[in-house]
């Protein structure tokens, strides 16, 4: 018996199924309502946005908010395409570098076990244990010492060395890339670079897709405002935040902005969901 959406298992009582389903519905509603509200508000005409009492769902959906957003963007002093280009450059170069360098290093740690690799990996695990805010001040000093202030480098290059990506990649390689496979390629005369690029990397596809997603998400939402001052180098999230900061009059446009910014990372996740879950399966820490 049991509920139709459940898979059958011996130890499951129907009562328990109903109880957990009930809890899922309540928590699901809590998670979904703000999202629905964002989507619904983005399509609300002005008279519904400031309706009293406020209404949750939109009655007469309209694209006015998106049109207003387009007008505000067209009027901006730096063309919006420039902000978009900045974000695309930071996101793509940052993500590509991170995936390449983290994979190379994870490969050397996981498969070569060179002297010192254990120390490095332990440091990386420890770095997962504290918030990056702790190092914000010294990082600012370092970046300003290097002369990277007010350039893409200040955001891109530190992102290459994000520790979560290396951790996930190394764990995945430990469990999913058999040493015998690499050894066979070496016997066939492949150089170590070929072994890495042509044997290991295709095998760990789910892991680097996951690294792409994680890196993409953090860079796509990055305002870069700590390091970047020039208006024509600023990012899309920064520009859109400025539009929203216009206050109550921008409530509808604000919802439209939120929707636009949300669609991209969510879509990227939907496309790669299976790979991410597979990678997280190897994320476990041994005692």
């Amino acid at each position, binding site marked *: 018996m049991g509920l139709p959406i459940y898979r059958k298992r011996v*130890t499951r009582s129907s009562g328990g199924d109903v109880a957990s389903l009930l809890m899922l519905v309540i928590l699901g509603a809590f998670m979904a309502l703000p999202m629905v*509200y964002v989507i619904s508000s983005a399509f609300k005409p002005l008279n519904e946005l400031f309706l*009293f009492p406020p209404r949750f769902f939109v009655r007469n959906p309209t694209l006015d908010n998106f049109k207003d957003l387009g007008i505000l963007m067209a009027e901006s002093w730096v063309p919006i395409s420039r902000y978009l280009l900045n974000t695309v450059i930071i996101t793509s170069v940052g993500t590509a570098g991170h995936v390449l360098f983290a994979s190379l290093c994870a490969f050397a740690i996981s498969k070569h076990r060179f002297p010192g690799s254990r120390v490095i990996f332990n440091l990386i695990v420890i770095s997962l244990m504290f918030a990056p805010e702790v190092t914000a*001040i010294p990082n600012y000093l370092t970046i300003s010492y290097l002369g990277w202030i007010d350039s893409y480098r200040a955001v891109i290059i*530190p992102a290459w060395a994000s520790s979560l990506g290396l951790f996930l990649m190394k764990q995945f390689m430990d469990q999913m890339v058999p040493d015998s496979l690499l050894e066979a390629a070496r016997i066939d005369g492949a150089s170590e670079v070929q072994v890495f690029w042509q044997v290991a990397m295709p095998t760990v596809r789910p892991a680097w897709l996951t690294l792409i997603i994680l890196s993409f*998400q953090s860079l796509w*939402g990055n305002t870069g405002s700590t390091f970047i001052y020039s208006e024509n180098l600023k990012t899309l999230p920064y520009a859109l935040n400025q539009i929203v900061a216009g206050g109550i009059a921008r409530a509808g446009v604000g919802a439209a902005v939120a929707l636009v910014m949300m669609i991209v990372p969510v879509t990227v996740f939907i496309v790669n969901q299976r790979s991410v879950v597979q990678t997280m399966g190897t994320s476990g820490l041994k*005692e």
Partner: protein
Amino acid sequence: MRSGAFFKKWGISYLFAAPYVILFLLFTVVPVLIAVGLSFTSYNMLQPPVWVGWANYVKLLFADDVFLIAVKNTFLFSAITGPVSYMLCLILAWFINELKPTVRTFLTLLFYAPSISGNVFMIWTILFSGDAYGWVNSVLIRLGIIYEPVRWLTNPDTLMCVTILVTLWMSLGTSFLAFIAGLQGIDDTLYEAGALDGIRNRWQELWFITLPAMRPQLMFGAIISITTSFAAGSNIVALVGFPSTDYAGHTVITHLMDYGNIRFEMGYASAIATLLFLVMLGTQQLVQRLLRKIG
């Protein structure tokens, strides 16, 4: 081993690891050491740092009333959001895992989406708006629970509750996915064997089979959850402003941002950062030890 032979054997490995390791040392390891060093100085970024010994720590612990408020808030905040979000991740992943794959995929996306949607959490400021146009106020007034609008985000009695709620809403992130993956990786024969061995209900199964089998993911998830719960700061500022009413939403991170980004007292800010670093590592060790006792 001669250095030539050593290089021949490991050279390529060091070459592979070098770009990442150099950047990691430069942007993660060295900064921690710099922060510890600066915490013993007075430094305003214009003049060279001056050694002051323990003075920053003494001032922080004994003379800074606002810091004590921040510590109290941070502990309250992380003691609630850390464990609750961890349990939420685990329970939801566990419920979802029982469902058919298509339903599971949809719900995974629904729960995970808030954590990757950037500034979308700001929608809560509209839902919890302090006037009668705010959706929460409007509903509560209509139901007759309150008679006048509550200023959710500026009233010191309520603003912490709202920030905790919002933080929980966007906390189903990396840990949640790790748990889903961990659950899917458990061998079904374990459950069949368990049923034969007299496991009666889902709770026994969870405690004796599921949790021990996914312990590596539980430990990884704990690390991420603890780090996130202590790192609360910029989202709180976005919701309740800075400084919040009566410092009711002031955390150690916002205190750090205050001295680092606004007052440029870098030595003092580094002392705050160093203390926070030590507390986070201490908590991590404690929790890792607890998790080993499961099952």
